[in-house]
């Protein structure tokens, strides 16, 4: 056995010949193949991640863009003294509580004639935002001398009106009518009759589109899954329900001025190509919005309100200011607590603490704390800060405290790493010159570690800014309209606001959710950018 092993011991010549053998060449080839494979995997992973990120960002940014714009109707409003100051008194209290909505309604009525009945009135009031009158109120309260005048005011559209203007419209189009049509009445359910087959082309169109004729009456019956067909006649608008070549029945959306016969281009045939069943706005709404649109009064503008107002039940009025201020206050508390405590803890552990079991345990536990799920900190906050210490719910103070617990380990770890990275030669130089340990740390080590500490702090703060779960536990999830003015006032924060909005059914809120996410991401990117900038600016090579 030993002999055999001895006899096969390779000689130098044998090894050299193996080195040049074809088997060796194959080995080299395999190595190249393995390297190529590794590179391909790496690039593949990068492309995959990049694609996901890009898809996510384009999706969110794309969705958010409409939320940064709003539509207003620039309308002439008559500031009727009878409404604003019914008993002739012009004092701020009266002016503030006056019924401005009735003024804007009156304006709309004058633009859109023929509003009759509950449904029409409801649609009319749905065109403008419930906050539209606020601008009017602001102006009048600021300048009561306007009362009695007619002024042009930008009135905010409602979320549905706004969305309609942003492209979720009905695809309205009109063609001049051919032939003569006589309406039976000016409102309600009416029939339109024609002696010269005015609806023949419409019937042909519908038949071609495959809409069946009713077996009994021979008329074509329209429904909400088909494009809406309307007739504009005598200053009003009739939505057709059934059509024969010689007549049609329908509902009046905007009442007619009279029931005399109209012929030729005097009446028009209107189509809303998007079926009613597939829109948020019904035909009545569309009829009114289209009328307002026709006046050319609707303008698109940047939605500054999104950044200047607090939350609202109305999407067009909702903004993130409250959440931003809440986040700022919360982060302020976090920073003020975390930075000094974290840095001093790190300095103590790194520079002064005796190396023994206790400091080892502390060290391990700090690292463990950094890995604790954030919701646990929320529970802790709920138990300690709210239930035991009795601090107010939903307050930035408590949010900041909880987030401070969350971020503290991160900052301590980052600060310790930064302090450790300062070469010992600097400490030795200072101590060799007769600096005390503390002087060496505070004069030399800490300033040199500061960029690293700041980087860690900013990243920790960015982490805190995006944190939601622990704040839910301490009640920062309430619906809060007011912009918080102090640390103990109820507030919400940006990620929680996003969470709240994302739950709401309105399309406009979905867009605002995306917009708020974009704002949050912008802040996070800015903070991380600042961290990277700090790191590269103050990076030292020893």
């Amino acid at each position, binding site marked *: 056995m030993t002999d055999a092993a001895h006899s096969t011991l390779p000689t130098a010549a044998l090894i050299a010949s193996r080195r040049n053998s074809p088997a060796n060449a194959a080995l080299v080839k395999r190595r190249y193949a393995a390297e190529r494979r590794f590179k391909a995997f790496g690039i593949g992973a990068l492309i995959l991640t990049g694609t996901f990120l890009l898809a996510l960002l384009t999706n969110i940014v794309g969705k958010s863009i409409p939320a940064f714009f709003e539509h207003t109707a620039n309308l002439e409003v008559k500031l009727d003294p009878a409404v604003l100051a019914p008993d002739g008194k012009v004092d701020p209290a009266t002016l503030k509580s006056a019924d401005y909505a009735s003024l804007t309604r009156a304006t709309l009525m004058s633009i859109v004639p023929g509003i009759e009945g509950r449904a029409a009135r409801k649609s009319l009031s749905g065109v403008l935002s419930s906050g539209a009158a606020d601008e009017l109120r602001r102006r009048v309260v600021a300048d009561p001398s306007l009362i009695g005048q007619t002024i042009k005011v930008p009135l905010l559209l409602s979320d549905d009106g706004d969305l309609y203007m942003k492209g979720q419209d009905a695809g309205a189009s009109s063609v001049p009518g051919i032939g003569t049509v006589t309406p039976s009445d000016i409102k309600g359910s009416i029939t339109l009759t024609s002696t010269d087959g005015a609806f023949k082309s419409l019937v042909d169109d519908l038949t071609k589109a495959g809409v069946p004729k009713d077996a009994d009456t021979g008329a074509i019956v329209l429904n909400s899954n088909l494009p809406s067909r309307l007739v504009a006649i005598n200053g009003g608008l009739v939505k057709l329900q059934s059509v024969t070549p010689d007549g049609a029945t329908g509902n009046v959306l905007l009442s007619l001025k009279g029931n005399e016969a109209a012929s030729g281009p005097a009446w028009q045939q209107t189509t809303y190509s998007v079926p009613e069943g597939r829109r948020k706005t019904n035909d009545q709404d569309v009829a009114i919005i289209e009328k307002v649109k026709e006046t050319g009064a609707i303008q698109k503008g940047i939605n500054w309100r999104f950044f200047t107002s607090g939350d609202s039940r109305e999407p067009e009025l909702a903004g993130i200011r409250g959440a931003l201020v809440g986040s700022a206050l919360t982060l302020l508390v976090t920073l003020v607590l975390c930075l000094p405590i974290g840095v001093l803890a790190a300095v103590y552990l790194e520079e002064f603490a005796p190396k023994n079991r206790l400091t080892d345990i502390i060290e391990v536990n700090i690292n463990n704390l950094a890995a604790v799920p954030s919701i646990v900190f929320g529970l802790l906050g709920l138990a300690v800060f709210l239930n035991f210490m009795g601090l107010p719910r939903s307050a930035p103070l408590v949010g900041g405290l909880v987030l401070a617990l969350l971020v503290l380990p991160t900052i301590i770890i980052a600060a310790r790493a930064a302090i450790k990275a300062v*070469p010992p030669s*600097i400490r*030795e*130089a200072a101590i*060799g010159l*007769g600096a*005390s340990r503390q002087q060496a740390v505070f004069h030399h080590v800490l300033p040199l570690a500061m960029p690293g500490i700041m980087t860690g702090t900013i990243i920790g703060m960015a982490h805190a800014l995006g944190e939601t779960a622990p704040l839910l536990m301490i009640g920062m999830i309430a619906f809060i309209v007011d912009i918080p003015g102090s640390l103990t006032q109820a507030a919400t924060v940006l990620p929680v606001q996003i969470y709240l909005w994302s739950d709401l059914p309105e399309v406009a809120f979905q867009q605002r959710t995306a917009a708020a996410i974009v704002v949050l991401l912008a802040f996070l990117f800015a903070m991380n950018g600042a961290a990277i900038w700090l790191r590269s600016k103050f990076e030292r090579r020893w």
Partner: protein
Amino acid sequence: MENRAVDLSAIERIEAARTAQITGAARPAKVVAEGVDVYYGAKHALKDVSVDVPDRGVMAFIGPSGCGKSTFLRCINRMNDTIPSCRVTGKITIDDQDIYDPALDVVQLRARVGMVFQKPNPFPKSIFDNVAYGPRIHGLSTNKTELDQIVQMSLQKAGLWEEVKDRLQDSGTSLSGGQQQRLCIARAIAVSPDVILMDEPCSALDPIATAKVETLIDELRSQFCIIIVTHSMQQAARVSQRTAFFHLGTLVEEGPTQLIFTNPKDQRTQDYITGRFG
């Protein structure tokens, strides 16, 4: 004739003084170590070292790597205090004052005993601030003019003034390696220490920078008691008047440099200087 005799005696006296200065024998001891032992935890790094370091002049510690030269040097300004596992026993006095006396303020000690390290380690601050740091923390200047003067004087003594006088606000780390080391020497002498410890101050420098630092050490020896650790025997021979040879934690022998290099008493010294080990 009379004149000539006087001349002769004068020459003799000068000669004697020169010898004394070169060997350092006639000078009173500045640093005295008696039976110093150093332990790093259980490791006995320095065993029963006793040595007298004379005032003024340069004493070199030589010996193979790991023999405890740095350890002993760091005992003299108590830098070893910063190493938790390190324990020093025995007695070291400077000017007859026990530096391990519990009543002694270690910060004050380090102001009296400056140190220059192996790798140049200027603070990443301006050249001015580097030199001014010692005087500042020890409150050695009462106003800005004085501080300016101290900085200038120190840089002049370190032979760096001409090179940096126009760029005192530049970072100390922007200097070349040799300049940085001279800056560290200037920083050490800015507090006017009695003793300067140098731990292989030239080992990170190129030959030209080394020559400059050696010249500087030679100039400073008339004002300071300098102890230099070096692993270069040529350097020890060039700059020192006395040499101590360490081996495996013990001080093997100590004496005038010329004597150590020409006529060592111990076989181990003989082996080391002839390059048989090291």
